């Protein structure tokens, strides 16, 4: 235990608590020799990520490609079990992503049914929601064509529309706003605001700083699998821009210096259960 830690008591009811989550992927390299599982490489995607998110918060998650954002989202939604640590939530968060696997052989119409059923919706709910899903996807008659004939934009529109149909309490959105043309962007943005109004809390991953500052009231910055900054959008975005600028200019020394400053000021959270007085055991 480190005795230097400050103590904070979280008074409100949290919606999501991420407790010391780490994720290591073991990837098998078949390149060498091609023999049975001989060489394996460990890739650490997340390192001791902890945070507490309350109701009504909309949290933006920023970071470079490969910084571990998508892994964190999958763990949040319970789709990927973390190597260590746990996520606690009031209800299972729903991930609305461009990665949601739909069946390429099936038509869009059949995929709506399958996807909604897989999310646990009842047949009646699906029937009620069906028209609004098709309308949001903007696919028109293409909804009866097989998914494999869709452009990637059409596919992600359909995925967003299907995911948005559940009205979850905790919602995770992965880059959805960046997909599609302007007309669709307006539609999704409207739908997003609607969902934000209904949901208890929202996580949004995006590379677009304007999107995040517009929709979020808290930003978490992940770099190389660690949370290095967690705070109001204005503050995090300021540092993020400074860091990205240093990186883009190729000045690695300056970038490292900025990063050190960011990390130094960051308050690392250690989760304790208020009532049992000790750490919750994982799994």
């Amino acid at each position, binding site marked *: 235990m480190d005795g230097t830690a400050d103590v904070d008591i979280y008074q409100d009811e949290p919606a*999501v608590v991420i407790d010391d989550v780490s994720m290591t992927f073991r990837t098998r390299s078949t390149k060498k020799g091609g023999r049975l599982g001989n060489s394996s490489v460990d890739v650490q995607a997340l390192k001791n990520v902890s945070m507490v998110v309350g109701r009504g918060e909309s949290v933006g998650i920023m970071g470079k490609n490969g910084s571990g954002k998508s892994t964190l989202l999958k763990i*949040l939604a319970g789709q*990927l*079990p973390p190597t260590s640590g746990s996520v606690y939530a009031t209800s*299972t968060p729903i991930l609305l992503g461009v990665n949601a696997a739909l069946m390429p052989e*099936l038509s869009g119409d059949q995929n709506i049914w399958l996807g909604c059923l*897989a999310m646990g919706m009842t047949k009646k709910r699906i029937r009620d929601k069906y028209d609004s899903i098709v309308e949001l996807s903007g696919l028109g008659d293409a909804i009866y064509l097989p998914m494999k004939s869709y452009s990637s934009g059409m596919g992600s529109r359909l995925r967003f529309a299907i995911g948005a149909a559940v009205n979850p309490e905790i919602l995770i959105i992965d880059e959805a706003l960046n997909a599609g043309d302007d007309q669709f962007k307006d539609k999704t943005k409207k739908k997003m605001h609607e969902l934000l109004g209904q949901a208890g809390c929202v996580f949004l991953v995006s590379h677009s700083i304007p999107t995040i500052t517009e929709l979020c009231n808290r930003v978490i910055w992940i770099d190389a699998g660690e949370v290095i900054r967690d705070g109001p959008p204005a503050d995090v975005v300021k540092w993020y821009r400074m860091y990205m600028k240093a990186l883009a200019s190729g000045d690695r020394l300056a970038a490292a210096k900025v990063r050190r400053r960011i990390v130094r000021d960051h308050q*690392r959270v250690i989760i304790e259960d*208020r009532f049992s007085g000790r750490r919750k055991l994982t799994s």
Partner: protein
Amino acid sequence: MSGAPAPVPGGHAVRTYVDLKSLHRVGARQGFLDYLVSIWRYRHFVLYDSRFRVGSANSQEKLGNAWIILSPLLNGLTFFLIFGLLLNTGKGIENFIGFLIIGVFLFQMSSRAITSGAQAIRGNKTVIQAFNFPRATLLAAINVRELLSNIPVVITMMVMILILPPTEAITWRILLIPPVLALQFFFNLGVGLVLARLVHHFNDLGQLISFAMRLWLYASAVFFSIDRFASVPVIQRIMEVNPLFIVLDITRDSLLYATTPSWESWATLAVWALGAIVVGLVFFWREEEKYGRDS
């Protein structure tokens, strides 16, 4: 404190006390009974998924779903040429063609269901990572699909037995076929559940399954009579408790030989089916949290 966090460079730690009482752990495995209930709640997903799989399984082939019947037919023909004509294993078997048809058609039902069941987790990783649903529903869907696509197979089988000489008369025992198929269904599902978890852990096992199934085929008296081993009672005994042999035996007795299958056969098969499904569900459920992980 269990597993103290690795030191993170820089920053300072804030010990935050949170009320975790009202929260539940995301992705936590449900209790076994809750798990069964949630499988039931996802029954529409199972039905829809399996209907789609029946529809699209052969969509790449020109003859489409005709292959559901054509492939056991050709299989049976091959076995007939090799074992019936060349090796003459059918000597002494009454109505060898009927005997072979039942053997090949029914064995293929199990072997297809078990082989594809074993790949259920591996082959559906993207769906598993995209949605939260009880994973056992994937195996249910695969087995329901096999059951649905086997309805025409069973009908073809019966028609062939009725029209190919020597023709057999229909007796009341034809009513014993649905219960036998039901027991076979639960047995397949149970074995599939066990194998799916094992293959998820040891990918290599998937390679072995086709060999195991072939061995099982030979041990199930598909194209020869079990009486061949009358001189080695141990082998005969082992074959007689083989659930797939019992399935074939009960069906042959009912359809070909106008014999009422013994209650011992029924009891053994029922124990196998019930045992497989219970063991399979529990064994599969215990790893429920981990199926989303790659390998």
